């Protein structure tokens, strides 16, 4: 069951005006409920666990969001566009390119991702404020690993 399935079900559920629905198949669970008072208003609660998780625990980070930026609860997530090692500083003893709270302009370097000994500068694609730094210095990142949470300016 993917997002568009869930959306289709929510749409239908909402249209019907029904009170509650629970669905389970394998490890997928969907539970939708309408608040009794505020019919047609409340936010549906969706809980969906992946049916099967990869056996590979090793180097995997948290499920990655699609690159380059997706909307989170509070901001947008900038994810890694390549596989490599993150360097937050231009040189070992230099200060980081960005810190939490910093406002950067489009084109400014956010970090370096090293892949096969090539230093790839990751630039901001829009003006934004860094809300949170999500990847440690020298962390290995997969494609899609979240790097920064930002707010557009």
């Amino acid at each position, binding site marked *: 069951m993917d997002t568009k399935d869930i959306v289709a079900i929510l749409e239908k559920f909402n249209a019907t005006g029904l009170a509650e629905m629970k669905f389970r198949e394998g490890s997928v669970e969907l539970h939708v409920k309408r608040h009794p008072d505020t019919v047609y208003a409340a936010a549906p609660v969706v809980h969906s666990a992946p049916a099967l998780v990869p056996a590979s625990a090793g180097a*995997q980070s948290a499920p990655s969001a699609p690159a380059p930026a997706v909307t989170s609860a509070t901001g947008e997530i900038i994810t890694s566009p390549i*596989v490599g*090692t993150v360097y937050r500083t231009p040189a070992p003893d230099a200060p980081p390119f960005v810190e939490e709270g910093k406002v950067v302009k489009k084109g400014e370097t956010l970090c370096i991702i090293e*892949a*096969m000994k*090539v230093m790839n500068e990751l630039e901001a694609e829009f003006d934004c404020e860094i809300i949170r730094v999500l990847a440690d210095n020298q962390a290995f990142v997969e*494609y899609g690993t979240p790097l920064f949470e930002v707010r557009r300016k």
Partner: protein
Amino acid sequence: MIRSLLVANRGEIAVRIIRACKELGIRTVAVYSEADRQALHVKMADQAICIGPPPSKDSYLNISNIISAALHARADAIHPGVGFLSENAEFARQVQLAGLVWVGPDPQAIEMLGDKVSAKANAKKYGVPCTPGLEGAVTNIEKTVEAVRDMGLPVIIKASAGGGGKGMRVVRKVEDLADNIRIASSEAEKSFGDGTVFIEKYLENAAHVELQMIGDKQGNVIYLGERDCSVQRNHQKLVEESPSPLVTPEIRRRMGEDAVRLFKGIGYFGAGTIEFLFKDGQYYFMEVNSRIQVEHPVTEMITNVDLIKEMIRVANGEPLSVKQEDIRFDGYAMEIRINATAPGTVKYYLPPSGFKVRVDSFLYTGYKVPPTYDSMVAKVIIGAPTRAEGINKMLSVLSEFELDGVPTNLESQKKIINTSIFRKGGFGTNVLDAIMKEIG
């Protein structure tokens, strides 16, 4: 010594390689695109790394991401599988430059064999029969037209860097030749970035017969029998079998000795396949695929040699575990490719099993077949004492194959091998047209 291996592939071949590694006690690293997060090879590997978005060019063809993943996961080696980067000499070189073992032949051999003009020149040099044709690539169209007029038609124009039928054109009238050379060349330029074409006599409805080869770094090379892959649709193989109904033990021996001479001559090691056109009891060199092939289980079934394990052994610098005199061709084997005809979610899956039955697949109940990649979802392989028994066995095994939720070509494949034309055997690559007429 390979202790950890990254599989730079997906699907059933990635599963196959991971299985061989597990048996050898080698740690496995899978790579996957965002479309393959739930793929079986990801679940089976000891570690899995996301290397890009769904399109192959950004993930399974992304050399830098794959090598970075291998280095980070401390893999010792990379197995490229089939397709994707498996015949990419540049990738092989980058793997080696990164200090990793490339499970495949030397990049130089890949490169030389990837160029059909130089591959054919080498085949000639080592005494492998080649299709009659014009020497070397086309350089002067007018001279080429004259030469073809002398040689006789029909001819086939082929792209030197070609594959999958691109840049390939059959010409039956000499007056159509010049135009077709230009079209083929520009097609090849577009597809492969190399417009070089060459010309051969066209063998009408020849069979596609290929020989499985493997060599080690000690210079040993053996052949493991042929596969007949004449049942094709648009150059895509549908059914593969061994032995070929056309190949006698005497022809097999000559073909094998010719192929061994070529492979030893060019210093080839690892698994490879030499493809021949086969007509009127004669075989003609077509090309070498310098990698393992989709249909390798057919050979594994009749020889009992685990080709993937041998590849890893060779990459490790060890000699082959078998000698030519150990190789026995035991009965008959057939592979049927099950292709999805549309994406879908597997609602129920029960693959067949039993005596001399093998299913290489990546399906499981609940798996969503993505629309992004190759349509093949399973290979069903059987072994039997004779071809006639093998066909019956395959029909019975396929009738057991249960897959709900994803439409496939399974019924059509059953019909194909059940025709009198297929049962008779001994046909060329045009056979599917005739079969389709019989099916009606």
